[in-house]
């Protein structure tokens, strides 16, 4: 088998191709280091039908996370995971889907945006989601990411006004990450009206792929969100199973179920 580290496809092109083919994107999330076998889990999720994988770098003070990902992050740190170790392991992964790293500003600031993005690039990572770096603070990071070929995925929330949605979609790349709720990450049984409303507003403002995250708990909520967007990100539902001790194969079962639900959505193609 050939190594594909440098051959992992760029994030946005990959997602646009899927959209053009009428396929809804599915991006599961894994906290780096949550279990000793976390890299095997990433590979299993890719095999189960993920279109990209989001890797969370564990951080001591994850302000935007609900209890599940907080616990995953703490467990990873307790087991000695660091940014350097996580990226070294990511570089060894044998995958044919792009990887996007999610993290908090301090881990980037601590190394400097340039060094951080350079390390992402050399680990074969395509994109970065800096969850607590809003557009107003992102200029140096966007420049550093661009110079290392890293796509910076920015988040929009139900509270984001229209002019900001346009600016975020314009200056970010990879995809636009639309948060279904005003709140933290975590599973929800159903998605509120604001999720559909936001997806519609973002789609009207940009041609970039729009993926919805926060609250996606399984096939039903995934399908509900994907009817209004180009795909979904699923974090807490994956990590809850991992924390409960499920095997990579069992967790991959969830991804297969969601894949099936997403593939059943029939939607007129974009013109």
């Amino acid at each position, binding site marked *: 088998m050939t190594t594909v580290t440098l051959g992992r496809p760029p994030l946005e092109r990959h997602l646009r191709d899927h959209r053009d083919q009428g396929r809804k994107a599915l991006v599961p999330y894994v906290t780096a280091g949550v279990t000793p076998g976390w890299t095997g889990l990433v590979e299993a999720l890719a095999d189960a039908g993920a279109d990209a994988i989001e890797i969370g770098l564990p951080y001591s003070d994850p302000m935007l996370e609900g209890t599940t990902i907080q616990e995953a992050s703490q467990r990873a740190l307790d087991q000695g995971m660091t940014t350097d170790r996580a990226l070294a392991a990511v570089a060894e992964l044998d995958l044919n889907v792009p990887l996007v790293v999610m993290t908090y500003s301090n*881990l980037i600031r*601590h190394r400097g945006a340039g060094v951080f993005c350079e390390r992402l690039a050399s680990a074969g990572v395509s994109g970065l989601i800096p969850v607590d770096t809003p557009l107003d603070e992102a200029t140096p990071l966007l420049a550093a990411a661009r110079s290392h070929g890293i796509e910076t995925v920015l988040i929009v*929330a139900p509270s984001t006004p229209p002019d900001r949605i346009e600016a975020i979609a314009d200056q970010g790349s990879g995809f636009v990450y639309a948060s279904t709720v005003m709140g933290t990450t975590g599973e929800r049984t159903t998605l509120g009206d604001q999720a559909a409303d936001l997806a519609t507003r973002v789609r009207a403002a940009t041609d970039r792929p729009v993926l919805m995250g926060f609250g996606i708990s399984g096939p039903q909520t995934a399908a509900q969100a994907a009817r209004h967007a180009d795909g979904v990100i699923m974090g807490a539902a994956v990590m809850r199973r991992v924390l409960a001790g499920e095997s990579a194969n069992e967790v991959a079962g969830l991804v297969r179920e969601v894949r099936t639900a997403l593939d059943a959505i029939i939607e007129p193609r974009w013109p």
Partner: protein
Amino acid sequence: MTQTASVLADPGADGRFGAFGGRYVPEALIPACRSLEREFRSAWSDSAFREHLTRTLAVYAGRPTPVTPAARLSAELGVTVLLKREDLAHTGSHKINNVLGQALLAQRRGCTTLLAETGAGQHGVATATVGALLGLDVTVFMGAKDVERQALNVFRMELLGAKVVPVTSGSQTLADATSEAFRHWVGQSETAHYCIGSVMGPHPYPWMVREFQRVIGEEARGQCAQLLPAGIPDVVVACVGGGSNAAGTFAGFVGTSARLVGVEAAGGASIGNGSPGILHGFESYLLQNDDGQVLEAHSVSAGLDYPGVGPEHAHLADSGRATYVSADDDEVLAAMVKLARTEGILGALESCHAVAWVLRAAGTDELPTSSTVLVTLSGRGDKDAAQVRELLK
């Protein structure tokens, strides 16, 4: 540009104090921060708002607080020590100045709920108090360890009608309580105001909280003019955790010749032992490990157990306008006892960090014999009595 023009000024739209400050929050909170900044700018230039705040501080919180010449301590040390008595403000510390300001602003914005984080419970009690005064709902987030250690303050908050939520994540102390308060704010930013307790957080908080605490320094400056032949003290000193009482004190003296000294807890010295980083929405000095993970602070005073420091202090330190030193737990306990026995004042452990520096520096080049020093006594020590009894056994 003079140094004083660039420090303790309006940080502008980007909320920067030199390299520090900013607004590092999830996108969902950006509209709330922007709206808060707009409202604060509008209120702070509205004389009716300021008069209402000043009047409430006077008739409810007991301002102005006096400056007490510490006669016996001064005689013993050979320096003139003046104490700015924030311990005499309602609820027992300077925290009420900020909470009243923010709560009146929250009312002006139409918010019905106040959220707050608390470590030892002083800011939580102040918020619960003002919530009761103004008829606002109050939810206080407090680390589970602190809930246990400060059971009496938890009861005080509940007695005042507040809801106290124990936070079980991480180290279960102030930093975790702060993260949890942010999480809840994301979910209710349209109806709830997050009442941050120090000069930290995303813009406009560090600036806004300093402006609400400015009253300490402005009163003290006028009082020093009455009490000291030279009009201003040679040195102004205050303890620094997040740094709100120090920022408020320094704001009154930054334009004078007074030397400004901030005293950190030895186990939580973000300026002394930290490096630049980003936590809870702002860039400043931060205690962190090689990976960039935030470290837990350890001090005898829970109020200084915070791994970061307000961005203005980082800037004051870098610009050289203020000096930051630290005091260890033993010095602080000794200072508490000394102040109690020479002046009949039981100072909070936090405040006694500033007193400890005076005891150490008096008669040295730092604070030469016959010089004058103003110490902000940020709070009273009744809350610490049980803990100190154990420590002195």
